């Protein structure tokens, strides 16, 4: 047992660090996710990585994966966090991609995997419905076979960034008479330009438009877009969620976030001294760091298990619960640290006159500008991907056997 990096791993770290330094778009440096980010900016790093062959490290090599060890993937995520890069969106790379190469047919793999790797095709996820959130299996959107097509009708919600999507993967009910709600669901790929699809934005508490309602009315989709076996979609859906969860811990990002929090708390003052010298505040930061240190090792243990041939299993639910709790606590402490400058809604404050094109806002320190928006936005993390309560149900059933 040891925690040391080998000389080869150190060399790998140097290699990816220089690659990021030399290739990451300068105008996006230290940018993070921002409500005013353009779709082109969101795809920029994905496309660069696609050209390099590094956009889907975790995939099997035959489908374009890098063949990196779990340790190398960990180093990769650490270095990206260090540079605060905007990583490829998960919908193609971490969600539908693994479903297609695991359960899809050869034609689907040939058609869809290259676009996911390159970042040329934008994917969105059609899972939740207004009446099917945590109880996902109660979904009502139907796909009815009509010759060589399915005809899809229904309403999906929380379709993240669907306003930019080229394709979507949808869970639809294909056998309404099935004995159990989990049976009779199919996993279908849908071209978002198909007539009958309407995407309506939902404004969120942080002022952003990240998610949508997606209405499907008599949408005709060729049957060749069915993934795997009809009515077996629930199996693929669960597989996808387990994959989604394994990357969801965000340990490296949170570590970088704690560094930034410490910088803010060193700059802010309380009773004439740096905020970070205040015991009550310092205690909260240390508690966060301790929980994060534990989660980092827990994630590495899980990765080591994967390397030994175990796929992401129910343990990934621990990573999801603890990872999102830590992300939320981090944003909460960051908002607390910036004090009163967490109050202004920066989205509507005019830029400095005569300073067109700059991101200079007129009030408060730079680090305060996104603190509240990020805090508000990150409440989603304990809700999406199967709420943290659902994760507890999964652990209870699959690990504790209750």
């Amino acid at each position: 047992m040891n925690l040391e990096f080998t000389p080869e791993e150190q060399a790998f770290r140097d290699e990816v660090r220089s690659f990021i330094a030399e290739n990451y778009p300068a105008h996006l440096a230290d940018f993070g996710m921002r409500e005013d980010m353009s779709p082109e900016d969101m795809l920029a790093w994905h496309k660069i990585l696609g050209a390099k062959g590094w956009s889907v490290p975790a995939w099997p090599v035959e489908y374009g994966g890098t063949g990196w060890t779990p340790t190398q993937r960990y180093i990769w995520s650490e270095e990206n966090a260090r540079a605060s890069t905007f990583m490829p969106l998960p919908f193609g790379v971490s969600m539908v991609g693994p479903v297609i190469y695991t359960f899809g047919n050869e034609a689907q793999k040939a058609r869809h995997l290259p676009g996911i790797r390159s970042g040329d095709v934008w994917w969105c996820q059609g899972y939740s419905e207004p009446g099917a959130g945590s109880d996902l299996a109660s979904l009502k959107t139907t796909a009815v076979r009509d010759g060589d097509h399915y005809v899809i009708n229904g309403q999906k919600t929380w379709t993240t960034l669907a306003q930019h999507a080229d394709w979507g993967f949808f869970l639809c009910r294909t056998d309404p008479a099935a004995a159990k709600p989990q049976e009779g669901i199919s996993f279908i790929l849908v071209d978002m330009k198909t007539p009958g699809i309407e995407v309506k934005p939902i404004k969120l508490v942080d002022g952003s438009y990240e998610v949508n309602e997606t209405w499907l009315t008599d949408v005709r989709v060729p049957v060749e877009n069915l993934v795997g076996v009809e009515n077996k979609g629930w199996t693929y859906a669960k597989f996808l969620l387990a994959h989604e969860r394994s990357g969801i811990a965000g340990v490296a990002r949170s570590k970088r976030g704690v560094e930034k929090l410490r910088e803010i708390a060193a700059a802010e003052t309380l009773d004439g001294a740096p905020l970070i010298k205040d015991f009550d505040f310092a205690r909260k930061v240390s508690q966060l760091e301790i929980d994060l240190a534990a989660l980092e090792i827990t994630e590495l243990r899980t990765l080591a298990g994967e390397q030994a041939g175990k796929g992401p299993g129910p343990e990934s639910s621990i990573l999801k619960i603890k990872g999102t709790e830590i992300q939320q606590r981090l944003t909460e402490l960051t908002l607390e640290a910036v004090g009163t400058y967490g109050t202004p809604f920066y989205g509507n404050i005019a830029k400095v006159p005569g300073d067109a094109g700059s991101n200079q806002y007129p009030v408060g320190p730079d680090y305060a500008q996104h603190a509240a928006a990020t805090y508000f936005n990150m409440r989603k993390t304990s809700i999406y991907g199967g709420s943290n309560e659902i994760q507890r149900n999964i652990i209870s059933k699959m690990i504790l056997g209750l």
Partner: protein
Amino acid sequence: MDFNFTEEQEMVRDGLSRLVREQYDWETRRKAVASSDGWRPEIWAQLAELGILGMPFSEADGGFGGGAVDSMIIMQEFGKGLVVEPFLPTVVCAGGFLKHAGTPAQKEEHIGGIVAGSRVFAFAYAEPRGRYDYADLETTAKKDGGGYVLNGHKAVVIGAPWASHLIVTARTSGERRDRAGVSVFVVDKSAPGIVTRDYETFDGRRASEVYFEKVAIPADALIGEEGAGLQLIELVTDEAIAALCAEACGAMKVAHAMTVEYSRQRKQFGVAIGSFQVLQHRMVDMYTAYEQSVSLTYLATLRLDAPDAERKRAVSAAKVGVGQAARLIGQDAVQIHGGNGVTDEYAIGHYFKRLTIFDSEFGNVDHHMKRHIALA
């Protein structure tokens, strides 16, 4: 980066696991801790025979070439069975001082006996008013001719009733709480002037108040450099904390498993209480706290050889995180067991007590939180 145990380590773990399962069952332990001796010397002899007591010593020192990871594996298995025998004070603490700072003669004299099981140690560091500050010492060792004279009172010395020898910390110069002036001695417990009051502890072990009244000890009782003992004490107690965290992990694992099993058997309102979501989620949070504790224990153990600040920060992180988990799991295990959880008859109450006492050993959550903050 590697989280695997070696084949030998797997063998040690499996062998020890079998020993605890087959020879340290609940009724046997209950009788042993209630007996006049309060422990089982025959188990100690068996541990020596199996090579467990020599595991973390180098071959040059007469051991079997293992290290902190081996101590972690051993302590985790001990934790599962609430083993009371003094592996920590003897092998990890006394062994640690001797390994790191013992002279060849001191190693020769003591390590062989530890490995063979014939020499049992206790670590006398705490004092009635010192709390968790190893430098806050009223016990003194004054130079006297060729040796020293010890005076003072050591508090709650775990395993002292079973020990033939003590490791004693004392001030050789400076004022209370000065970092400099702390020294470490190895002392024969039968030396004239040593008076002990032995008692039971809440977690089934034995301990003593140890009084030193003009105890004359030879010059070669000093371990390491005179007056420069604090750094050594910090190193060895960090090693002890890592091992204790492993023990707590073992105890938490069993306490959690017992609770899940109990919730399957116990019926109320016509169904097993384990079918209630409110209890399921509590047991999931216990499980998560346990897994996070294992991770922090790995971190602390694997950072024991790191530079001082890094080592201390990792060890304090573990003592905080494992301490919080031990409290959560102990209390929730009792709660889910209902009234049975607070009876002496059910094993769970005894796991709860061990997990409670764990917090105060070598600094509690608050103490290590402060050290973690100070090292940021």
